[in-house]
């Protein structure tokens, strides 16, 4: 302390120099608070006017969309696909399926009626609905309806007619077995479709319907095929009638010639 007192002049000078050199306290600068506030207010205003208005408009538009979707949903739920109607339709399909089962029983009733051995053998094959049994038709047919006469027992024209008629009859019998088998297959297919339809959804029911339509087209085609067979056999029957007339004309001609020959002698 004594040294400090003795050196007080330099110390004071030093202090003065330090005081002069140290930066003066920063004077308060001029702040335009109004501009800052205005800028902040502008942001707020922009948020409110632009973003707020936009979001409100979006919210309103989404509300409208929501209402529309609810209306459409309600329309589909209550008018187009009401659950009650769908359940009832499922029930109706079930009832119809039960009726189909009855029909299946009816069409498979045994209608065999022959009493003698040969007719029974042929009839059992004809009513078998088994295409694998078609090969047995020929033998049993010939046993019952007799073979084509031999060359010495009938003229060629008659033998041709008989053979053609037998062929058509046999073919028709065979076709009838195939048609019965096809009908069984259609019955199976329709049972399958009915089962599928009973558990279908409203959206898949038209798919089952489409497949049913396809099966119906096939069924119609098979029916046409069966009808064609019926027409064939009727055509042969008609041809036989015509052939009878022709044979009679031939016989008359032969008789006339024979009589003429007889008188010539």
């Amino acid at each position, binding site marked *: 302390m004594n040294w400090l007192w003795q050196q007080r002049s330099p110390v004071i000078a030093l202090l003065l120099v330090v005081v002069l050199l140290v930066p003066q306290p920063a004077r308060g600068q001029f702040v335009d608070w109004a501009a800052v506030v205005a800028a902040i207010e*502008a942001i707020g205003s922009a948020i409110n006017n632009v973003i707020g208005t*936009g979001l409100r408009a979006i919210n309103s538009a989404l509300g409208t969309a929501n209402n529309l979707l609810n209306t459409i949903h309600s329309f589909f739920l209550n008018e187009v696909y009401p659950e009650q109607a769908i359940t009832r339709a499922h029930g109706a399909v079930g009832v119809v399926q039960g009726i189909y089962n*009855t029909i299946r029983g009816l069409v498979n009733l045994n*209608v065999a009626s022959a009493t003698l051995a040969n007719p029974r053998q042929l009839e059992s094959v004809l009513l078998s609905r088994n295409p694998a049994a078609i090969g047995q038709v020929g033998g049993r047919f010939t046993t019952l309806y007799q073979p084509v006469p031999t060359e010495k027992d009938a003229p060629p024209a008659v033998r041709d007619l008989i053979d053609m008629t037998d062929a058509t009859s046999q073919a028709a019998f065979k076709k009838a077995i195939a048609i019965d088998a096809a009908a069984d297959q259609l019955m199976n297919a329709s049972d399958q479709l009915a089962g599928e339809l009973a558990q279908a959804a409203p959206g898949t029911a038209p798919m089952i319907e489409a497949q049913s339509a396809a099966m119906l087209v096939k069924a119609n085609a098979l029916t046409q095929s069966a009808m064609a067979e019926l027409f064939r056999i009727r055509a042969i029957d008609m041809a036989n009638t015509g052939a009878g007339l022709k044979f009679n004309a031939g016989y008359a001609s032969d008789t006339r010639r024979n009589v003429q020959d007889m008188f010539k002698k």
Partner: protein
Amino acid sequence: MISLLWSSLLAFLMVPSVRRAVAVTVVIALAVMVVAPPARAQIGIPAVIAAATAVVKLINNVIGGLLNAIQGTIGSINGVLTRFQSLWQDVVYPLRLVNQARAMVNSMIAQYRGLLTALLRVNVSSATLANPAALENAMRNRGTADFAAVAGAYVQTYRPVPQPTDAHPIERDLADIDDAMALANLKTVKASDAVVDQMMTAANVIEDEGTRMAPGSAAFLAGAGMIASVKSQAVMQRMIAAAIRQEAARVAHDNTVRKRNAMFGAQFRTDVQTMFKK
């Protein structure tokens, strides 16, 4: 006591060395007080305002633009939804036409059901004698539990197959197969009549449901109807198969008569030759 302490403090401060120390301390304290604290760096206000302006611009131009675009898109979606709703409600499934379709089903039921049922059941029986009347009744009663009665009435009307002593085996076989084909077809037709009744019942079930159907449940009924049609075709094929069998048997029968004629011819030739040999 306090005055004693005060006087002691004054005495102490009067000590020269103490006085110097106090003076130096005061000078330093004054210097420290006079010296300003370092000026803190201050943010530029113009920069703040510029930034705020930029934010406002961003909000106005970018966010505002995007919100306008979103609003426009949602507006378009609403337009589509409105048209969609109008399409379904006014064009595809107009409630008026849905109700009209249901009403049409009701109207068709009233118009046709009874009439068609009556037409199906028109009595066409025409036999006058006992046996034919019995057969006619049995073959037209639409039942399937009386096939034996059909066979019995058939034999009563058309007589049984001749005894072996009364006809050649070929003729007996022919008569039996002819009877069998005819009888089988009469039975098949009875079954078919019963199937027709079942089909009509199925159609009525579908039709009844049609009076309460919704557009979404109609496909089930259409499907059921379509399946019934397949079934009906199958039954139709059975009928045609039976008709084919019958026609084939008839043609085969006629053919057998020709064969028998050939046989008779051969037999006659043999007999004549034998006669002349004798």
